[in-house]
C-alpha cells in the first residue's frame, strides 16, 4: 500500500507551504504523488527519486575526472582543508535546515572561518536597513486575518512565490477578512507590468531606479506636505490617492522583493520603506516584510544571530570575537580581493550565482561543494559531498520569510549511505578536533625534545 504523508513542508521557496500531501510507494523509495504544491514545489519531490543521485563523495583527480571516495575520506579531506587554510569561507545555506546551520557554525568557529549565507547576495541590503531603522512586521497569518490593503513593491510572487497570494495575502479569507479578495485593496508598484500587477486594483509603474523618490513622495504626502506634479513617473493625483488608501487601511502590509533591495538605492530603499511603515503607524496599523527567496534563507540569519549576534558576513577568524562588516567580511568582496584560501559551497550554487571573477579567484584554492544535487558549483569543485535533501529525506526546522519556524518532515529515506548536512558537519568538527589534538601532541614532543627554553 502506498503511504500518504500529510502536513509536509515544501523545501523550495520562502512561502514554506506546510500543507503538502505526499504519496510514497510501498517500499518507501519512490514519490508517487504530491498534492497542494505549486509546479515548482512538485518538481522538487519528483526530482528527488526520479533523477540519478550522487551517492558518494567525489574527489577530483589529476586528469580532471571525479572519483568516488568514502565519507570518512571526504570528511578527512574537508577537515584538512579547513585546518590548513588561513581564511576559509563557508557560504550558502539557503536550502538546508537550521540544525545543519548550527553544526556548520561550530565548524566555522573551530576553523576560524568566514561564515556567510545567501543573504550576502540577496536580502543583505534589507539587513543593513534593519540595523539602522528596525523592522515593523508581523506573521503571515496576521496578514491573512486582518489586512485590507496589500502592497507588493518590486516583487513578483506570481512567479517567484507562487502560493504567496493565495495562502496569505490577496485571496485567503481570514478572521476579519471573511470576504477574501473582495475585502482587500491590492497595490502593485513595479517598473515592469508583471503577472502580479495584473491582479492589482492599482498599479503604479515606477520609473526604473526611482523607487526611493516615490517612497519619499508617499512620506511627504502622508505628513501633509506638497509634492510636485509628478514623481518617479507617477502623477501626483495617483500618489495622493494611494496615500489616502494607506492611511485609511485598517491593517496594511508592504511586501517587497529584490526589485527594491537590489536596484539603485538598495538598502536606502528599504530604509525609507521602513520609515514609511513607521509613519503610517501614526495613523493606523502597517507592517512590512521582505519576500525572502529560499525556504530557509531566513534560517541562518536566525541561527547565527542567536549564536554570534550577526545574521550574515561573520568573520570568525579572530577566534574570540565575531566580526561583521559587509563590504569587508562579505563573501564576494573577500573573494574578489583574493583573501579566501578555501571555499565551502553549502546548500546553494555559488558557481551559478557569484560573479565570474569571484568564482575564478575562489577556484585558485580548494573548493568543496556540499549539496544533494549536481549543480554548477559541484562540477567545478575539488570535492563534492552529497547530502540528503531537507524536507524530503531529512527533517528539521526552517524559518519562513516571516521568521516563523516551521517543522519540516522527511517523507523518504535518503539514498543508502547518504548523510545529512548536520551529521556531515558534526563529523568534520570531530575530525578538526582530532587534527588539533594530533598537532598539539606533536608540539609537545617537539618542545620536550628541544629542552627547556633559556629564560625559564
Amino acid at each position, binding site marked *: 500500500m502506498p503511504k500518504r504523508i500529510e502536513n509536509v513542508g515544501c523545501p523550495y521557496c520562502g512561502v514554506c507551504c506546510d500543507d503538502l500531501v505526499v504519496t510514497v510507494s510501498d517500499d518507501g523509495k519512490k514519490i508517487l504523488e504530491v498534492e497542494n504544491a505549486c509546479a515548482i514545489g512538485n518538481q522538487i519531490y519528483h526530482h528527488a527519486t526520479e533523477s540519478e543521485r550522487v551517492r558518494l563523495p567525489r574527489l577530483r583527480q589529476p586528469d580532471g575526472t571525479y572519483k568516488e571516495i568514502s565519507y570518512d575520506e571526504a570528511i578527512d579531506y574537508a577537515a584538512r582543508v579547513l585546518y590548513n587554510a588561513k581564511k576559509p569561507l563557508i557560504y550558502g545555506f539557503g536550502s538546508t535546515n537550521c540544525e545543519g546551520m548550527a553544526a556548520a557554525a561550530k565548524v566555522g568557529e573551530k576553523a576560524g572561518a568566514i561564515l556567510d549565507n545567501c543573504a550576502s547576495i540577496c536580502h543583505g541590503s534589507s539587513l543593513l536597513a*534593519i540595523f539602522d531603522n528596525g523592522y515593523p512586521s508581523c506573521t503571515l497569518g496576521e496578514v491573512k486575518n486582518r489586512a485590507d490593503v496589500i502592497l507588493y513593491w518590486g516583487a513578483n510572487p506570481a512567479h517567484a512565490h507562487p502560493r504567496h497570494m493565495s495562502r496569505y495575502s490577496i485571496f485567503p479569507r481570514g478572521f476579519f477578512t471573511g470576504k477574501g479578495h473582495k475585502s482587500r485593496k491590492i497595490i502593485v508598484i513595479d517598473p515592469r507590468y508583471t503577472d502580479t500587477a495584473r491582479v492589482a486594483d492599482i498599479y503604479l509603474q515606477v520609473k526604473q531606479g526611482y523607487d526611493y523618490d516615490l517612497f519619499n513622495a508617499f512620506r511627504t504626502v502622508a505628513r501633509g506636505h506638497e509634492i510636485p506634479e509628478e514623481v518617479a513617473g507617477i502623477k501626483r493625483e495617483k500618489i495622493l490617492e494611494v496615500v489616502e488608501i494607506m492611511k485609511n487601511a485598517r491593517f496594511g502590509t508592504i511586501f517587497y522583493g529584490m526589485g527594491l533591495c537590489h536596484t539603485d538605492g538598495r538598502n536606502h530603499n528599504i530604509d525609507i520603506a521602513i520609515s514609511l511603515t513607521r509613519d503610517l503607524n501614526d495613523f493606523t496599523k502597517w*507592517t512590512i516584510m521582505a519576500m525572502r527567496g529560499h525556504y530557509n534563507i531566513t534560517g541562518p540569519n*536566525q541561527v547565527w544571530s*542567536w549564536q554570534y549576534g550577526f545574521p550574515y558576513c561573520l568573520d570568525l577568524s579572530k577566534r*574570540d*570575537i*565575531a566580526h561583521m562588516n559587509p563590504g569587508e567580511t562579505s563573501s564576494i568582496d573577500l573573494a574578489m580581493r583574493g583573501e579566501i584560501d578555501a571555499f565551502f559551497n553549502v546548500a546553494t550554487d555559488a558557481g551559478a550565482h557569484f560573479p565570474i571573477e569571484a568564482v575564478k579567484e575562489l577556484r585558485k584554492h580548494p573548493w568543496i561543494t556540499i549539496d544533494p544535487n549536481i549543480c554548477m558549483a559541484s562540477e567545478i569543485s575539488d570535492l563534492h559531498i552529497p547530502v540528503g535533501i531537507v524536507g524530503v529525506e531529512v527533517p528539521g526546522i526552517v524559518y519562513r520569510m516571516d521568521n516563523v519556524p516551521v517543522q519540516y518532515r522527511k517523507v523518504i529515506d535518503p539514498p543508502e549511505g547518504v548523510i545529512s548536512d548536520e551529521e556531515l558537519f558534526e563529523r568534520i568538527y570531530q575530525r578538526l578536533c582530532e587534527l588539533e589534538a594530533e598537532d598539539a601532541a606533536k608540539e609537545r614532543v617537539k618542545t620536550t625534545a628541544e629542552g627547556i627554553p633559556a629564560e625559564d
Partner: protein
Amino acid sequence: MSELLIKNGFVFDPLQGIRGDRMDIAVKDGRIVETSALQHPETIDASGMTVMAGGIDIHSHVVGPKVNVGRLFRPEDKLFKSPLKRCNRMEMGFSVPSTFKAGYDYARMGYVFVNEAAMPPLHSPHVHEEIRDTPIIDNAAMPVFGNNWFTLEYLKNHEIENNAAYTAWLLRATRGFAIKVVNPGGTEAWGWGLNCENVHDPVPYFEITPAEIIAGLIETNEHLGLPHSVHLHCNNLGNPGNYTDTLDSLKLAEGYTPKNNFGREQVLHATHLQFHSYGGDSWGNFESRAPDVIDYVNSHDNITIDIGQVTLDETTTMTADGPFEHHLRALNNLKWANTDVELETAAGVVPYIYSPKVKVCTIQWAVGLELALLSKDLMRTFVSTDHPNAGPFIRYPRVITWLMSRAARDATMKTFKWLERTIDATSIDGIDRELDLYEIAQMTRAGPAKALGISNTYGGLAPGMDADIAIYALNPENMPENPEEIEKALSRCACLLKDGVVTVRDGEVLTEPPKRTVWVDVKVPENAQVQRDIYEHFLRYYSVNLGNYSLFEEHLFNPRVIEVDTTQ
C-alpha cells in the same frame, strides 16, 4: 558515582530556615544527601565563604524570537570583546547576549535555572532551538495567553473548563511552563494599532476587558493547579500615573487562594513591578508610587513580585507589549522592530539608554529599590531586571549590592544629574535598610523557586534536591568594607556545582554539564468542544497546519517534565 563534601561554609537556605550556620553540605550522584551518606568524598573547602543553592531567575528574556530580533538588529551591542577566559564557544553581545554567553554568564554568577518570560506559542520551535544552544542552565519558558483568541473567547463566556483544557493543550504543544499574561487585551488591540489602557478598557471586537482576562486566567490556573501562578505584566506599563492601574490589576487576585501540590502560596505573580509603580500625569511631574504598590503587596500574601530593577545601562527593551514599544519608539526615536503574531500575541523591540543624567531614569532606578527595601516579605519579592528591559542580567550582583549597602546606593546617587529631584520624587533617600545574605537568598533562590512551584528540586539545599550549589567568596561575619567587592564576589562565584558537577571555579567555567528543558504536562478530561475549536481555528485562521504546530519531540532538548493530573 561521585561524592563531594562542601565543608565549613556559611550556609544560607531560607527553605529550611538556615541562616548562615557553619555546616557541611554533602553531594552524591548529582543530589544533595545527608553527610552520613558519603563514604569517600572529595572535599571543597568553603570556610570563610557563603554557600547557597544555585540561583533562580523567575523572569528573564533570554531565548526566542524577540530576543533574537534584539541580537540581530543591534550590531552595535557587540562592539567589545569579552574580557573573560574563552569557553567552549565564543561569547558575544552585551545587553542581548548570545545563547552561549547567557549560559556561561548565569553560571558564573551561580545561577542554574532561568524562566524565559515570554514564549509566543507559534514560535515555540525557535524558543526550544535557542534553549538547546544555551549551555549549563536549566530553562523553562512561559507561553503567552493574555491576548490569545482562544483564551479571549472562552473567558468572554466564562468557560473556565474549556479555557483550562485549551491551556493544558497549549502548554503541551509548546512544551511550556506556565501562564504568562502581557498587557492583557492591549496586545490584541495593537493588531489594529490600538491599546487597552486600563483594566476596564474593552478589547476591540472581543468585547472582554483586561480585568476579566486576568481573573479568568487566575481561575483557570487554580482550576488546573499548575506549579506556577498566573505571571502578569500589567496593562499601561511605563506610563506616569500607572500605579492605579497596577493596583486595579493586583486587586483582581482578591478572593482567590492557591490550589496546587507544589508548595506555591500565591495566585498572582506581578512581574517587573518597577515599571508599574509610577505617579504623576506627565514626564514633568513623574514620581514614585512604589510605597503605595508595595504596601498593597505587603498586606496581600497571595501575590508575589519581581522588581525589574533599572541598572542605568544602555540596553534593549523587548516585550510582548507591542503598543508600549511603539510608544517608546516615539519617545526616543530610535529604531523599532515589531512582530505581530497571528491569534496570539505581538512583540516590540527598541534600544534604550537609562542614563544617570536623565531624571526619569534615576527615578525609575529608585522605584525598583524602594519596592525591595520596603517589602515586608522577601520570600515574595524577587530580584530581576526584566532582562534586558531594565538592564542586563549580568548586573544582578550590582543590584544586590545596592540592596545590601546604603553606601553603594549613595555612591551611585552621587552620579545623578537630577539628584535633588530624584530624592524629592521618591522615598529612596529616607531608606537606610541594608539586606543581609539570608534575605538575598530569599529573593534569588528560595522565594522564586517556591513561587515557580519547583522548590522540591531547586532553590534549596535539603537532602534529595538537585545538587545545584553556589559558593561565593563572601564572609558574612566579615563583609567587605568596599561594596564593589560584594559585586565582584557575586559576579564570579568561587564555585558552582550543577547537578553535583563542579562547573565553575574561581569565576571560570570549567565544563558544561547537560542542561534541561523544564515543562509542565497537564492531564485534563477529554474535551471535544475544545478539540473542535482548535481544529477549526487552524483550518481557517492559522498560517501553519495544526499537524506542524505542536513541538516535535525531536526538537525538545533534554526534558524534565512536571506532571499535573486534574482527572484524579
